[in-house]
C-alpha cells in the first residue's frame, strides 16, 4: 500500500476515530468535542483535496470471505467519488464550523458533534464504497446517524417521531435495495461494482430480471433520496438542528441515492424500461414537492420540499441520461449541494437570530437587520431558481436539455422550474422584505463570524460552481443540439419570479389558500391510515391468534387434567365395583382377541 492508497483510508477512518474519541472520551467536555470534530472535518477536506489530484486507486480488505461470497471493505477513488468527496467534506467542514456557534449553548453539544462525525464517516463510506454490500452497510449507518441527529432533541416528541419516521421509510427502501443486491449478486456472483460491470453479459440474459433488480435497488435510493412515495420523512426530518438539515437533509445524505444511481449508471443504461420508470418517479417527486412547497409557512419546510423537488430532478436526470461520470444528475447534485446548504445555513442563521422562530409570516424585513445573511440567501435563492449565470442555471439547463427528448417529462421539469422560482421568491419576499411582522423580527442581527463565513464561502460557490464544470460530469461531449430548452428555462425563472413578486409583495398573510398543497396531498394522513389499517390491524389480529394458540396449549393441559379427573371417578372405593371393571376389562379383551 503506497502513500496514495493511504489517503482515502485516512479520509474514511478519520471521522470514525473522531466520533469514537468524542463519544467515549470527550463526552463531558463540550468545547473540546466541538474543536476536535471541526478539526477532523478540516483534515477530511484537506485529504479530499489531495485525493482529488490523485490517480484513481482501489484498495480493499476482505471482510467476509468464503467460497461463493466475498464481501470486501474497499475504497474506490475515481472520477465520481473524488468529486463527491469534495462536496461532502467541503460542506461538512463548513457545517461543522457553523455548528460550533449554532449549537454553542446546547447541553449535549458533544453528543451532537460525535454524531456529526459518525455521519461524516458513514457518508464517506458510501462515497468510497467499491461494492454494493459495503455501500449498504454505510447506507444503514447514515440512516442511523441521521436518526440520531434528527432525534438530537429527543425530549421533544416530534423529534423522536420524525427520527423514527425517517428510519422506517429508509428501512422500507432498503428492503428493496437489499433484495436488488441479492438478485444482482446471485446472477453475477459478485457485489463489487467493477465485478458487476464485467458481468453485464450475464446480467442482460434476462432483461425483465435486470429491470426488476435495478428497480429494487432504486427502492433504496427512493428511501434515502426521499422519492415519491417514500418522501414523507424528509420534511419531518427538519425537526433536527438546522446544520444537520443543511448537511444531511439537503446537501449530502439525501443525495446519496442519486450518487448510488450514478454509480450503477452502467446498469441502468442496460435497461431502458428501468431508466424510464426511474425518470418518471423523479419527475413526479419533483412536481409534487414543488407544489407542496408553494403553500408551506415554515422556512425549513419550504427548503425541505424544495430539496425533495430538486432530488426528483436529479433522479429524473439519471433516468434520462445515465452516465458513469454522473451526467447532468451529478452536476445538479454538485451545484445543488452548495446553494441548498447555503439556504439552510442562512435559514439557520435567521432561526438562530430570531430565537427559534421558523414561520416566515412572523419574519419580514430581515434584509435590514441581517445584511450578510440576506444577501447570501438571495444568492442561494437565485442559484436555486435558475437565474442565468449562477450555478443552478447550468445544471438545470443540462437536465432540461436531457429531458428535451421526452416531451411529457420536459413539461413536468419545466413546470417544476417555474414553481421553484415561484416558491423561492415567495420565501425571500415574505421573510426578508417588507415590514417586520413580529417582535423577534425587529431584533434580527447577523450572526458571529464562524456562522457567516460558511455562508459567504457557500455563496461564492453557489455563484461559480457551474462555471466550466459541466464537462467534468459528461463522459462524452454532446453538442447542444438545441437552445430552446435553455430559453424556456430562462422563461420559467422569469415567470416564476414575477408571479411570486406580484402575488406576495407587501402582503402580511397568505393570499392564496390551496389546502391540497398545504396538506401535502394528505399523504401523511393516507399513510397513517394505511399503517393503521394494515399493520396495526394485522398486528392486532396476529396477537389475537397468538393468544388463541396459547389458549389451545392451555386448553390441552386443562383437558388432560379434566380427563384425569374423570378417570379418577372410576376409583370409587368399592371393591366389588373394581371387580366389575376388572370383569369388563376381561370381557373386552377376550372379545377383542377371540371375536375380532
Amino acid at each position, binding site marked *: 500500500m503506497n502513500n496514495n492508497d493511504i489517503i482515502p483510508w485516512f479520509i474514511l477512518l478519520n471521522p470514525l476515530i473522531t466520533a469514537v474519541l468524542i463519544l467515549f472520551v470527550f463526552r463531558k467536555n463540550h468545547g473540546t468535542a466541538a474543536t476536535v470534530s471541526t478539526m477532523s472535518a478540516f483534515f477530511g477536506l484537506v485529504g479530499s483535496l489531495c485525493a482529488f489530484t490523485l490517480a484513481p486507486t482501489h484498495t480493499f480488505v476482505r471482510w467476509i470471505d468464503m467460497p461463493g461470497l466475498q464481501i470486501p471493505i474497499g475504497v474506490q477513488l475515481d472520477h465520481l467519488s473524488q468529486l463527491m468527496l469534495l462536496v461532502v467534506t467541503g460542506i461538512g467542514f463548513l457545517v461543522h464550523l457553523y455548528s460550533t456557534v449554532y449549537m454553542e449553548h446546547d447541553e449535549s453539544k458533544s453528543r451532537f458533534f460525535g454524531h456529526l462525525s459518525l455521519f461524516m464517516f458513514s457518508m464517506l463510506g458510501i462515497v468510497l464504497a467499491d461494492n454494493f454490500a459495503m455501500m449498504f452497510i454505510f447506507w444503514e449507518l447514515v440512516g442511523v446517524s441521521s436518526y440520531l441527529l434528527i432525534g438530537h432533541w429527543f425530549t421533544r416528541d416530534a423529534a423522536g417521531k420524525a427520527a423514527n419516521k425517517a428510519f422506517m421509510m429508509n428501512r422500507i427502501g432498503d428492503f428493496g435495495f437489499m433484495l436488488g443486491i441479492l438478485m444482482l449478486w446471485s446472477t453475477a456472483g459478485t457485489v463489487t461494482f467493477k465485478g458487476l460491470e464485467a458481468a453485464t453479459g450475464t446480467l442482460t440474459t434476462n432483461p425483465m430480471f435486470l429491470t426488476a433488480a435495478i428497480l429494487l435497488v432504486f427502492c433504496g435510493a427512493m428511501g434515502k433520496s426521499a422519492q415519491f412515495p417514500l418522501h414523507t420523512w424528509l420534511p419531518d426530518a427538519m425537526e433536527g438542528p438546522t446544520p444537520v438539515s443543511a448537511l444531511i437533509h439537503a446537501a449530502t445524505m439525501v443525495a446519496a441515492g442519486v450518487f448510488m444511481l450514478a454509480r450503477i449508471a452502467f446498469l441502468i443504461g442496460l435497461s431502458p424500461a428501468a431508466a424510464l420508470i426511474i425518470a418518471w418517479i423523479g419527475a413526479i417527486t419533483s412536481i409534487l414537492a414543488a407544489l407542496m412547497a408553494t403553500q408551506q409557512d415554515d422556512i425549513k419546510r419550504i427548503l425541505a420540499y424544495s430539496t425533495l423537488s430538486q432530488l426528483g430532478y436529479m433522479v429524473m436526470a439519471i433516468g434520462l441520461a445515465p452516465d458513469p461520470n454522473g451526467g447532468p444528475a451529478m452536476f445538479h447534485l454538485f451545484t445543488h449541494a452548495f446553494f441548498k446548504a447555503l439556504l439552510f445555513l442562512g435559514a439557520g442563521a435567521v432561526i438562530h437570530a430570531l430565537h427559534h422562530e421558523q414561520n416566515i409570516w412572523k419574519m419580514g424585513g430581515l434584509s435590514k437587520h441581517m445584511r450578510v445573511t440576506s444577501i447570501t440567501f438571495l444568492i442561494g435563492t437565485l442559484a436555486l431558481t435558475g437565474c442565468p449565470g449562477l450555478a443552478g442555471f447550468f445544471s438545470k439547463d443540462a437536465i432540461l436539455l436531457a429531458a428535451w427528448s421526452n416531451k411529457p417529462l420536459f413539461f413536468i421539469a419545466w413546470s417544476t422550474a417555474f414553481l421553484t422560482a415561484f416558491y423561492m421568491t415567495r420565501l425571500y419576499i415574505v421573510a426578508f422584505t417588507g415590514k417586520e411582522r413580529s417582535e423577534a423580527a425587529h431584533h434580527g442581527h447577523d450572526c458571529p463570524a464562524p456562522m457567516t463565513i460558511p455562508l459567504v464561502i457557500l455563496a461564492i460557490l453557489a455563484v461559480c460552481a457551474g462555471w466550466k464544470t459541466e464537462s467534468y460530469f459528461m463522459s462524452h461531449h454532446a453538442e447542444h443540439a438545441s437552445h430552446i430548452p435553455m430559453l424556456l428555462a430562462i422563461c420559467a425563472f422569469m415567470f416564476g419570479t414575477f408571479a411570486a413578486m406580484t402575488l406576495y409583495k407587501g402582503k402580511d398573510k397568505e393570499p392564496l389558500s390551496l389546502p391540497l398543497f398545504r396538506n401535502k396531498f394528505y399523504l401523511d394522513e393516507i399513510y397513517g391510515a394505511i399503517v393503521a389499517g394494515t399493520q396495526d390491524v394485522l398486528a392486532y389480529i396476529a396477537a389475537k391468534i397468538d393468544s388463541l394458540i396459547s389458549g389451545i396449549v392451555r386448553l390441552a393441559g386443562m383437558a388432560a387434567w379434566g380427563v384425569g379427573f374423570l378417570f379418577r*371417578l372410576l*376409583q370409587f*372405593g368399592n*371393591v*366389588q365395583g373394581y371387580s366389575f371393571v376388572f*370383569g369388563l376389562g376381561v370381557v373386552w379383551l377376550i372379545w377383542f382377541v377371540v371375536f375380532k
Partner: protein
Amino acid sequence: MTLTLNHYLLVSGLLFSIGFAGVLLRRNIIIIFMCLELMLNAANLSLVAFSRFNVGADGLPNFNAQVLTFFIITVAAAEVAVGLAIIVALYRARQTTHVEDITTLKF
C-alpha cells in the same frame, strides 16, 4: 353318551363363571372369598380333565397337571388362612363384612 373333554371343560367354565358372578354380586366379603375359591376349583377341575384326556405315549396321564392341582389346593388353603384372618381383623375393627362399608379409600 360318553363324557368327553368338552363336557368337563363346560362344567369347569360354569364353575368359573358362577364363582366370578358371586364375586360380582354378593355383598358379604366371606361369601365373596368363597366364590374366589370356587374359581380356583374350576381351574383344578379342568386341569385334571386335561390331564386325564392327555394321555402320553406310555399310556399314563400327564402328571404335570395333577402336580399343579395339588399346588393350587395348597396355595388356596394358605390364601384362605390369611384371608380369613384379615377379614376377621377387619370385622373386629369395623364391625362389618359388607363391601359397601369399606369404601374410605377412594379417588
